[in-house]
């Protein structure tokens, strides 16, 4: 109420308040839509991360079993040999922007050519690279989920502030000013009537 009392009851003030209300409603609509888009993105990323986690759980056991089998067949130095004879995967750390939310991302760069390796190592290599790719994808999705969650939280606060505080306050102030102007108009009318009556009475007396 204290804020309502501090408004100057002028027409310019009313125009300014109306403009602000229009702007606030527009911003509210835009932010609400942005929030919806962000929530959709969040759910999509969440679904992807669950899917990737499931995929990793499916892949990890065969890779482990194959690795153990190779260790049994070729001995302890098999992985050093594997490392030396094959081209490794490289990745570039980058950033991705989802509706203004910056998240970390990775671009995998596959080796151009594969050198011949021992029997059994080829399959292990394919499975292991698939697992690695799935782990990277999971990391990307989970990072995006966290970043989107933070952005959703702050956007929601802004949307709620507009919806429950700023727009109702501006509407109240506009209503108050209108009431004041109406009151003034009524006062003016009654005053004019009064003056008219007095003038008529004077005329009669003369």
């Amino acid at each position: 109420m204290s804020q309502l009392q501090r408004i100057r009851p002028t027409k310019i003030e009313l125009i300014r308040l109306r403009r602000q209300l229009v702007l606030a409603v527009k911003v509210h609509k835009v932010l609400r839509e942005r929030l919806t888009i962000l929530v959709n993105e969040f759910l999509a990323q969440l679904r992807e991360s669950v899917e990737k986690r499931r995929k990793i759980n499916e892949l990890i056991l065969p890779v482990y079993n194959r690795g153990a089998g190779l260790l049994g067949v070729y001995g302890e130095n098999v992985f050093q040999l594997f490392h030396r004879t094959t081209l490794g995967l490289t990745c570039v750390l980058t950033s991705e922007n989802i509706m203004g939310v910056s998240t970390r991302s990775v671009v995998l760069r596959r080796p151009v050519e594969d050198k011949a390796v021992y029997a059994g190592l080829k399959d292990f290599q394919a499975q292991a690279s698939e697992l690695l790719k799935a782990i990277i994808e999971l990391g990307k999705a989970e990072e995006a989920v966290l970043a989107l969650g933070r952005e959703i939280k702050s956007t929601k606060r802004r949307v709620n502030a507009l919806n429950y505080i700023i727009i109702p306050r501006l509407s109240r102030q506009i209503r108050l000013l209108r009431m004041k102007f109406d009151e003034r108009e009524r006062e003016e009318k009654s005053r004019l009537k009064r003056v008219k009556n007095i003038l008529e009475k004077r005329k009669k007396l003369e």
Partner: protein
Amino acid sequence: MSEDRDFLSRYLEGELRLVNKHVPYKRKNLCELLEEPVPYIVLRDGSIHVFDPEELRRLKQVLGDRACNLSLPIIVEYVPSDQEGFYVVNGALEVEAVSKVLECKGEGVQLVLYRPQVIELRRKLRTSTTILIKPGGR
């Protein structure tokens, strides 16, 4: 009090400006992006957005010979209205690419999409599409 209100106006205008900070400064051709080792663009807030190479290859496959004319990211404009707003894709090639990816009918230079379609589109082309919010409507 008037200072408070000016602050409020400035804040609201700032919000409208910031809502499109993820839109690129300059779009790049699909072929140009495919040639780059790490395909990326610079956004209006100065940050870098990297495209998923698999999505680029998919778009190339969808559009065939005309793929080089496609500028990326594909901009999907959100147009607010009194009720729920809608989304518009402009440009003949963009419309063709989006309609083929979504497996829907799309002709001409403009395609109107609704929210479920946009969710589907973002799921399929997450890095190569971006949503532009038009605060003033059409």
